[in-house]
């Protein structure tokens, strides 16, 4: 399979590599290893350079994420309002530790460092939607809501 058609319009942009990774991840949910040599060829870069950029940034995934991606803020403002306890609760209730996807592929749990919602902490992002003042009880309700939608 060729991935080039996903991003061919971006190739001639200056500094195209990040926009290309974002595009592929937006469409496929991750950036497949097999896409890297193609991108290197298209941009006239070495495979090492492309791999280096891919692995430098926290955002880019090399494997598909779960159906629901939950990011919990670990930064100071959220810590001040109990994000450590929230993370513990989330790991238990989702049945998966931070940085990983549950066995049934339903949810990926990741840390993030500031979502810019520091006055309404703890903050969580669920499938790209920002949530504030997330207590463990509200977390359960939000997860139930998203799982209900997924079904």
């Amino acid at each position: 399979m060729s991935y080039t058609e996903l991003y061919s319009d971006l190739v001639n942009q200056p500094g195209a590599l990040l926009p290309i990774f974002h595009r592929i991840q937006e469409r496929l949910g991750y950036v497949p290893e097999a896409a890297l040599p193609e991108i290197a060829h298209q941009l006239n870069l070495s495979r090492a350079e492309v791999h280096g950029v891919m692995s430098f940034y926290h955002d880019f995934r090399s494997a598909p994420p779960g159906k629901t991606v939950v990011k919990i803020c670990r930064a100071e403002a959220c810590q001040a309002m109990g994000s450590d306890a929230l993370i513990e609760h989330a790991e238990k209730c989702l049945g998966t530790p931070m940085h990983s996807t549950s066995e049934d592929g339903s949810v990926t749990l990741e840390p993030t460092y500031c979502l810019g919602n520091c006055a309404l902490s703890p903050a969580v992002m669920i499938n790209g939607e920002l949530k504030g003042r997330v207590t463990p009880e509200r977390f359960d309700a939000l997860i139930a809501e998203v799982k209900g939608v997924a079904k």
Partner: protein
Amino acid sequence: MTRIFVPRDSAALSVGADHVAAAITREASQRGVTIELVRNGSRGMLWLETLVEVETSSGRVAYGPVHPEDVPSLFEANFLNGAHHTLSHGLTEQIPYLAKQERLTFARVGITDPLSLSDYLAHNGYKGLKNTLAMAPADVVQQVTDSGLRGRGGAAFPTGIKWKTVLGAQAAQKYIVCNADEGDSGTFADRMIMEDDPFVLIEGMTIAGVAVGATLGYIYLRSEYPYAFDVLNQAIAIAEKSNYLGENIQGSGKTFHLEVRLGAGAYICGEETALLESLEGKRGIVRFKPPIPALKGLFGLPTIVNNTISFASVPIIMDKGGEFYKNFGMGRSRGTLPFQLAGNLKQGGLVEKAFGLTLRELVEDFGGGSASGRPIRAVQVGGPLGSYVPPEQFDTPLDYESYVGISAMVGHGGIVAFDDTVDMAKMARYAMEFCAIESCGKCTPCRVGSTRGVEVVDKIIANDNRAANIELLRSLCDTMLNGSLCAMGGMAPYPVLSALNHFPEDFGMNNKELAA
């Protein structure tokens, strides 16, 4: 027809503003009342979100925090005429939190519909650009210099000097780059400007472009801000369509194009040279300086890199003059700073004030004390690389120089409060851990020092050879402070040392041991 305002700022959305808006629309139609629903920006009184406002003949009346289930009772209470309800706060402009502020950069935020250009124009928008287009480039740069504006990202470098350098540089292409990689915990002013008044940022960058002869600009936006990405792209499209961006802007013969680029979750890309590398499609690795970006920046060409709030402060300077802006503030810190009250505070939100107020005013008067009701024990000012300030220092005026005087920094104006349940040794460990996770890896003090730092703090906590390890931690911090290539490794010791110095008991020491 009554106008009702429900914010579209993502902080408001995060506590259900969309549901409140839907409930209001539904309730109005069930009652056969016609209303005009405006999705404005947030007023920045974030503890009151969702803050609903109703336009009345005496001004806008505020109700909050409104939940969808409160909506029927608001209609019952006749809130459409600004009547009393348990959630009402009277006229929005008279709420002390807002009334006591000095809103220059955030003058329109919360008042207007962020994506309405006519709203923007009706509230003094694009007056700064209009003046700019009638002036010689050097005079524009002079106004910015005269205003005393310093980089609002944290480094506080005089903006006018940076612009003057780029103006004087000879090159076929120059760039304007906005650093919108607002990664510091406890900060959200950039996000609010971009979501709630995007045209002010666009105008500020356009003024910069016209002033120094740069025709292309990039906003480097962190990927954690998807709402801002969306709003900025819409606003840019509107500005292009109305000839406020593009070729021959408003018939002036000047050209300025603007594009938003997304970061990818790397904190270090908030450092200007790492940001430029990232924009070029590379790993966000810090560059050696010199050469400075003003001479060799993006793609090796002269580039202004300024923070979002710096650019957003330029339109009012060019509208009312450098002298006007300079009259706010104290010492060498001129103008206003949008402080962001976050963490364990009753009344978190955005407070734009002239430099010179104290942390006590922010935390106690505006913030209303801790959310938990317990005493506030420490406040981290200026993001994850900023010092922890103990209550004894709450009366130091907030200006760049006074804060340097107490080994702290004002930075981007983030204020994160902790109550007395905080474990400061744990916070010191976290500062090192964060540095280890986010270090770009180019220089050894930061890359290796941060990892060793976590280990040493762990040993101190475990009472493993405590006294010797505290000495080792201090020595390690000294190496990082003096030997790191950029502020990441160079400032990560600030939270660590301030925790150690002000809260030695959390590291298992009494003050006598510390003195020894």
